[in-house]
């Protein structure tokens, strides 16, 4: 009887531990799935020209606009229903809001999300403000849609993003629209 109880006491914690690991793995897998179908790579992974046309450069997966790519002044658009233009990498966008650059979502502590907490991430998506308290997140980031994600989904996305390879890449901060004539900023 004692040996049965002892075995039980050994097995249960091990099972609980395995369950915890499995749950964490499930969350990361779920996060990867969400990042994939929510098309995060479309803008946050620079495109390169492949044999069949533009394709995401997965060696720079989710690292945002390459800091080495200095963008020239955005082209002037002709009158008409054209509102924006974007870089060949799909990581820099110019429009009435100025110029926005897609963020580094990798866990690099200096230039990515490495120092972010889950709350920082959720506050950013929910509020549409950088870190939940700073400047507005600009187009084309579909905040109005992503802010509808459940807590569990946002937690899974963040969990996954913390597992991908860290890439040091300091993305410039947005440039204001020319009409405002005010200063631009880059900071982290």
């Amino acid at each position, binding site marked *: 009887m004692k040996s049965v109880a002892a075995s039980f006491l050994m097995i249960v914690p091990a099972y609980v531990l395995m369950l915890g690991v499995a749950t964490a793995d499930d969350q990361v897998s779920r996060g990867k799935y969400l990042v994939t179908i929510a098309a995060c790579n479309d803008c946050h992974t620079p495109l390169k020209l492949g044999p069949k046309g533009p394709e995401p450069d997965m060696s720079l997966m989710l690292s945002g606009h390459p800091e080495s790519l200095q963008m020239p002044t955005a082209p002037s658009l002709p009158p008409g229903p054209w509102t924006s233009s974007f870089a060949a990498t799909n990581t820099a966008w110019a429009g009435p809001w*100025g110029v926005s650059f897609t963020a580094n979502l990798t866990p690099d502590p200096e230039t990515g999300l490495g120092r972010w907490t889950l*709350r920082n991430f959720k506050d950013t998506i929910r509020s549409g403000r*950088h870190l*939940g308290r700073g400047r507005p997140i600009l187009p084309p980031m579909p905040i109005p849609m992503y802010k509808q994600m459940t807590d569990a989904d946002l937690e899974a996305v963040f969990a996954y993003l913390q597992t991908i390879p860290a890439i040091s890449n300091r993305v410039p901060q947005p*440039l204001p629209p020319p009409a405002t004539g005010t200063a631009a*900023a880059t900071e982290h």
Partner: protein
Amino acid sequence: MFVPRHGGIISAMSFKVLMAAAITALAGMVFVVSAGAGPLPDRLSDTGLFVEGSTSEVRAGVLSFTPQYPLWSDGAIKRRWIYLPPGTFIDASRPSAWEFPRGTRLWKEFRLERRVETRFIERLADGSWRYATYIWSEDGQDAVLASGEGIASLTLNGTEPRQYSIPSELDCRACHEGPAVPVLGFSALQLSSDRDPLAVHAESLRADDVDLRKLIERGLVRNLPTSLIKTPPRISAASPTERAALGYLHGNCGQCHTNSSDASVPVDLQLAQDVTDPASTEKVLQSLRSSSSQFRLPGTTAAVPLVSPGASHNSALLIRMRSRDASVQMPPLGTAIPDSEGLALIARWIDQDKNPSTSRE
């Protein structure tokens, strides 16, 4: 024996156990209901600010106060009140992070040509805080609860028509939940009787205002260190201008720039004063000197320092305070018009007090 309707047989003992469990569960539900918050009232007049039937006469027990370093709100004239439940008090054991009792309520009224909105925060029974704002009708009869989404642009008619932004609940939390305690403007420094005569947009104390001394005398603030009772809190500074400048930065920027370890603020900058720390001012000044700024002017690659002593035009602090471009401006929310008086003060401080050729540092 108890025979349930579906034919099962439960012993009398089991039945008692089940009943006890059910009663316990019900009691738990009652507790949850009583501990939770009811919905916010639809009208400001039902939040406990005014006497019954009035929207101007403040209820007895609701205390008016005026911080010495007010937050710039695009020129709005503001009034503020606090209510503490009877028999409760604020525990000031941590002088820079007062512990407010459950049931605390605060209101802040914003007036331009008329009353526009009154913001409301309340500490609930579970210790959490909730935030709301009430929008006044043009005739001033009452104010109604705004959507938690806020209003990006509310048209205000009058002799000077303008657009006005009602904050969302997330906007409220963005500012109020940065510091250790979400109550801003009601602290030992802000209510000190040693008020700064050069504070920008300073308002005179009203006859019915409470300050730190009155709160202590009435037992509404307790456990404040004796040293702060004997000597009311005051910002240590090399000059009156510096005192006012640091006070302005405390009141307008200190809610986010509390310390250098807050991950949600990307610049390692401390502008909040700590009344218990004799080195508080030096820490703020050191922070302004040493924090790395990545701020760049258009078309340049060199970062602009936070403060260039003697050169406010080359100080990111002032440039960002002056800007109202959404990606540059500071503070990032709550204002659409630069504060000319605040800018003048900070410029004077940087250009004169911090000028290396004249500075006493």
